[in-house]
């Protein structure tokens, strides 16, 4: 997206040209663009894996792949989508937006910023290369539960090393975000005057630095169990495989919110802009985000109700999990209240944000159902869970990212995307996302376990529908790539203030913004 931005400014910044320019860049916009392009690439690789999965599941019986490879696909799809697509996309948005939203010239740690991006291609090359090993890639699910993950082939140490690298990259990125937000805000911008996207990212960054090291610890223990004779997770040495699940989900649940809090921030930015009305309940939005983040550390075991917990534990984790519905509900109500008696228009970013609210809420509803332990004994590890987390991650996180790209693309490039193509992209995406994931609720409730390459014939109809939806969804995203291409080859025409209802410092800059965003800090009243 910023190739052209760069062209305009290249002459008066004596940066190296060509590939070296991108490898050595310390500019927040360049790095933001790198993150976003990388994320798009990963989105397609992970999506391709999803289509292999859905193609195999189109009808009962095995037609395309053997079960072992199917498991590698489900495992890789998750790792790529979480660590390769959604998280880097959010970091890319943070890189682009934080400096221009808080009135800073760049990020606080530009060289570290360069590092945290360039770790990613190496990590993912290593991760993906395991698919070409004789023993294949990781096949124990992205949750890497032992003892199954300890049975894996030679890929295991490579997978663990690449997850370590991803963790380091995220932690460095998070440190940069925290340092920038805490120290580089324009004079007058107190914490409670920060744009809500900045707030959600600040909280996300704290979640990252608290959660990622725990994942690092857990997978290090896996590694030493396999190769250095420890027995953290093997019963024969006095360890306990269930302990891995506890440690993993102690990371894993905050991770879930890492994937959604920035999306909340994006939606909270877009809804007011196109409702031409201030965000309703800014303060309560901030408190709700913070309480969701805090609660995320005491709910982890709801991912593992079936491991056989003591009754008190089951009740505790059920209640804390239900409690999360309260701040999440506040957020949804606030969005609706923001729209209420606004003056709405429905450009592409707004459409994606509206679909986010409805579909994320549906995902939240199934989440609330999953929180009820007695019913979870039935839901657990079925397609109902698959439907739930795809509803919160695809029309949740991914829709928010797409909305953000449409919303800020004219600012980043100075070029306006085609509104009619954008709307077409929205409708195709939204229809197919529901065709794909809604039937999964049904087969899950009817008894289809997740992570199976083949299924009894009674689940055939809904699986066929879901597979058709998945291919439709995948193909619709090619339109997104075309829209981006089509936009970038235009001439610079976008106004500085692209959306008439938008607020914030980024709209005071030119479109595209200057190389160093705010050479002189603006004053915030």
């Amino acid at each position, binding site marked *: 997206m910023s190739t052209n931005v760069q062209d305009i400014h290249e002459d008066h910044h004596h940066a190296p040209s060509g590939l070296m320019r991108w490898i050595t860049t310390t500019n927040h916009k360049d790095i933001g663009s790198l993150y976003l392009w990388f994320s798009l690439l990963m989105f397609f690789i992970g999506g391709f894996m999803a289509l292999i999965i859905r193609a195999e599941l189109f009808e009962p019986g095995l037609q395309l792949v053997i079960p072992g490879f199917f498991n590698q696909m489900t495992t890789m799809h998750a790792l790529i989508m979480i660590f390769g697509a959604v998280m880097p996309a959010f970091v890319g948005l943070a890189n682009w937006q934080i400096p221009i939203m808080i009135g800073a010239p760049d990020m606080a740690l530009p060289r570290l910023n360069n590092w945290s991006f360039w770790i990613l291609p190496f990590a993912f090359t290593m991760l993906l290369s395991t698919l070409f090993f004789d023993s294949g890639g990781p096949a124990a699910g992205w949750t890497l539960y032992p003892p199954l993950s300890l049975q894996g082939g030679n890929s295991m140490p490579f997978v663990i090393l690449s997850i370590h690298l991803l963790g380091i990259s995220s932690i460095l990125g998070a*440190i940069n975000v925290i340092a920038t937000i805490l120290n580089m805000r324009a004079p007058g911008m107190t914490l409670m005057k920060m744009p809500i996207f900045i707030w959600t990212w600040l909280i996300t960054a704290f979640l990252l630095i608290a959660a990622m090291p725990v994942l690092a610890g857990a997978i290090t223990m896996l590694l030493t169990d396999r190769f*250095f004779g420890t027995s953290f997770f093997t019963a024969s040495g006095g360890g306990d495989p269930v302990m891995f699940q506890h440690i993993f989900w102690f990371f894993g649940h905050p991770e879930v919110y890492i994937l959604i809090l920035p999306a909340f921030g994006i939606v909270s930015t877009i809804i007011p802009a196109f409702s031409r009305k201030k965000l309703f309940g800014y303060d309560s939005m901030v408190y709700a985000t913070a309480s969701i983040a805090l609660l995320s550390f005491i709910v982890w075991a709801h991912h593992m109700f079936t491991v056989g917990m003591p009754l008190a534990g089951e009740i505790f984790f059920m209640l804390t999990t239900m409690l999360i519905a309260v701040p999440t509900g506040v957020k949804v109500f606030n969005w609706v209240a923001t729209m209420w008696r606004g003056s709405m228009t429905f450009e592409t970013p707004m459409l994606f944000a509206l679909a986010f609210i409805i579909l994320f809420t549906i995902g939240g509803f199934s989440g609330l159902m999953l929180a009820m332990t007695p019913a979870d004994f039935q839901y657990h590890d079925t397609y109902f869970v698959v439907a739930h987390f795809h509803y919160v991650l695809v029309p949740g996180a991914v829709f928010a990212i797409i909305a953000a790209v449409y919303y800020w693309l004219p600012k980043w490039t100075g070029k306006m995307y085609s509104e009619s193509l954008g709307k077409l992209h929205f409708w195709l995406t939204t229809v197919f996302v529901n065709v794909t994931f809604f039937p999964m609720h049904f087969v899950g409730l009817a008894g289809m376990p997740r992570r199976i390459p083949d299924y009894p014939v009674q689940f055939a109809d809904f699986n066929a529908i879901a597979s058709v939806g998945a291919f439709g969804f995948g193909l619709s995203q090619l339109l997104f790539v075309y829209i981006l291409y089509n936009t970038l080859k235009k001439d610079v025409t976008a106004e500085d203030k692209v959306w008439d209802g938008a607020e914030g410092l980024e709209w005071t800059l030119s479109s595209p913004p200057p190389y160093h965003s705010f050479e002189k800090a603006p004053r915030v009243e």
Partner: protein
Amino acid sequence: MSNYKKTYITVSFIVVFMFFFSYMLVPLYDIFCEITGLNGKTNQERIVNLDEKPTNRFVTIKFTSTVAGAGPFDFEPLEREMVVEVGKVYTTSYILTNQSNSLKQVTASPSVVPGAEAEYFKKIECFCFTQQEINGLETKELPLQFIIDDKLSSDTKTLILSYTMFNTTDQLGVK
């Protein structure tokens, strides 16, 4: 610049702390298990200060066994069921046969159901305390001496003791 420094130091501290915290979760988890009986983990220590306090309360103990992995063993309890008096010491044993031709090291891992009562199943002598060796084609009787603590909840009428026998021959890191 000191503000930046403060931020970096605080943040780095959190990162390092959380990494070690993940390791701290290991002993914390064990304590948690002991308190709640999660997973039916029994205490693996020998009971030394033993005082028999017969209570005239009787519970049924069921014994069961599992062979882990493709271990070449036959592993069965000598008695499937015992009715025991709470607070009195009993002795029983498991029979282990090595069906292969070579010497094997084995480790048994105990688990008690219901998990919440696991801590009251106290072992005085158990083959599960240490790694055992068994010669090829040998059959061995593995003794177990235990007492049911009188703190056992009065609702409990049945306890189930399960051992899983792991083949730990040439395996790293087994005590």
